[in-house]
């Protein structure tokens, strides 16, 4: 089966600019996650969707980050305006459900550099 697709793979922007990332989860996966992985750290959950509804966005910096999952399939994550500390790899993951026996499948990520 096809994996989680993310684009772009790399993005370089200047601080205060805007940027958007796109994620297409595995077909049929109802749960979608966005993670931020800063260099040298483990991924940190930003937001979790169940179908097109937000389940958890407690760690999303809502003053500059936004995410949506219209129609419960693809998702976009936006940063506006970007700061230097937003430089990181943004990972998208999806699962079929939310139970223990479901496995999270991760995309290759988008590496963002803010200069």
């Amino acid at each position, binding site marked *: 089966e096809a994996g989680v697709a993310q684009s772009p793979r790399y993005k370089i922007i200047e601080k205060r600019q805007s940027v958007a990332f796109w994620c297409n989860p595995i077909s049929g996966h109802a749960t979608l996650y966005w993670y931020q992985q800063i260099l*040298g750290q483990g991924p940190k959950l930003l937001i979790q969707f169940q179908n097109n509804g937000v389940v958890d966005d407690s760690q999303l910096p809502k003053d500059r980050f936004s995410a949506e999952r219209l129609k419960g399939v693809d998702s976009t994550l936006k940063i506006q305006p970007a700061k230097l500390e937003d430089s990181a790899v943004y990972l998208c993951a999806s699962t079929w459900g939310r139970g223990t026996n*479901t496995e999270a499948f991760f995309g290759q990520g988008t590496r963002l550099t803010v200069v």
Partner: protein
Amino acid sequence: AQSVTQLDSHVSVSEGTPVLLRCNYSSSYSPSLFWYVQHPNKGLQLLLKYTSAATLVKGINGFEAEFKKSETSFHLTKPSAHMSDAAEYFCVVSEAGTASKLTFGTGTRLQVTL
């Protein structure tokens, strides 16, 4: 609150020798525990998971981990390292009964030398 501590940021072994990557966890509930591997320029891949069944868990590529509640540990082992095992390894915890809210450790970079 849940957390994991990976005790080594970098481990170097010779090919053919055993691998030990250490992980301690903290959780208010009965945890589910995972090990993920991240190869350069590739997505995170699940190696194995513990979900309150057998305490010794076998995963892919010859890796296994043992859940020790008394020591709050979930160390990852492999009897014989291969060059292709060189990667970043993450220990992950979540509350039992859910695959959501995965909390990652800071990672251990495994280097395998000839």
